[in-house]
């Protein structure tokens, strides 16, 4: 058969990927315009009153409004947020083929520059994390920000190959540290319930101290949990032998 007849007889419709892109673009434009118009047209509030959270900051034990909301007025939400982290850790444990966490040395960067730079900067990063934790009582800061810096510190140590300095090989110790934030909240909840108060209500003369104690436990817990989550989710990608899957050498990308 001649190619001319072939071209006439085989009528190709739009390829599936282009059709999907067009449908996605149309849907996106519709949804974005709807969402945008709704957002812009939100009615102004008629009788604005100062937020109750702002008015009661002095009684919360800290000087910063957001920290007061997070750790005093809505501390139950923060406790559940820590639970979300624990559940994510359990889910990643269930997905991995090895059912324990490791914090081992990798040999990704045997670069002496990165090793030396890490040795210089890690103490300052730990100091920054502690400072952010303390700063949360009077300015934006607190447990989650400090925990994020701690996560960055741990990941830097691991990828620079320095994590073998004093390894925590035991998976149980790692799990205990990761549960420390949750346990701190639970201890405060049990104590408050046992003394007859509503759950998670601090002693009125020790509110600042309770908040700082909980935040410290949550910081350490978050730092280790996030570092282990990301390290173990992509362990083989950064070269260690504890990963659960093959490396992504045959990474295909037709897009």
């Amino acid at each position: 058969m001649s190619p001319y007849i072939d071209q006439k007889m085989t009528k190709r419709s739009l390829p599936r990927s282009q059709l999907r892109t067009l449908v996605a673009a149309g849907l996106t434009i519709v949804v974005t315009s709807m969402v945008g118009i709704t957002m812009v047209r939100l009615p102004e509030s008629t009788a604005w009153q100062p937020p109750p959270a702002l008015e009661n900051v002095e009684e919360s034990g800290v000087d910063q409004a957001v920290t007061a909301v997070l750790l005093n007025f809505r501390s139950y939400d923060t406790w559940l947020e820590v639970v979300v982290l624990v559940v994510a850790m359990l889910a990643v444990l269930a997905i991995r083929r090895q059912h324990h966490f490791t914090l081992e040395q990798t040999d990704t960067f045997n670069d002496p520059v990165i090793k030396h730079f890490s040795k210089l900067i890690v103490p300052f990063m730990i100091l920054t994390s502690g400072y952010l934790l303390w700063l949360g009582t009077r300015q934006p800061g607190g447990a989650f920000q400090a925990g994020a810096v701690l996560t960055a510190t741990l990941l830097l140590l691991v990828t620079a190959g320095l994590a073998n300095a004093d390894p925590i090989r035991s998976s149980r110790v790692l799990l205990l540290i990761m549960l420390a934030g949750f346990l701190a909240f639970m201890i405060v909840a049990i104590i408050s319930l046992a003394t007859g108060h509503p759950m998670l209500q601090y002693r009125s003369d020790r509110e600042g101290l309770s908040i700082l104690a909980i935040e410290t436990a949550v910081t350490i817990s978050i730092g280790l949990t996030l570092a282990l989550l990301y390290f173990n989710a992509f362990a083989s990608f950064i070269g260690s032998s504890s990963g659960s899957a093959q490396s992504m050498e045959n990474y295909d990308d037709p897009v």
Partner: protein
Amino acid sequence: MTQFEIYSVVSACLFGLGLFGLIALPNILRKILSFNVMGVGIFLFLVATAQRDNPSQPDPVPQAMVLTGIVVAVSVTAFALALLQRLNGETRTTILDEEQAENDQ
């Protein structure tokens, strides 16, 4: 255009960009990143709402919700990456619907 309107439009655009990426991109890692972009758009809108009525006294409750939301998004991303890693280990691919992608070429 008021500040809140600018924030709202940017937030809606971020949400739309994330939605487009989530649907149209076949690579799963890019879908995960698009999902995060959608989340960031919503966080921006929450924070903009907090300071809308009286910028000198922003409501701290939506700001605390955004902090919680960021941590939840990070946890979900970690789990999604672990799933992607497991999928890559089992099927040696990172693309959803690879047969379609092959048929189109």
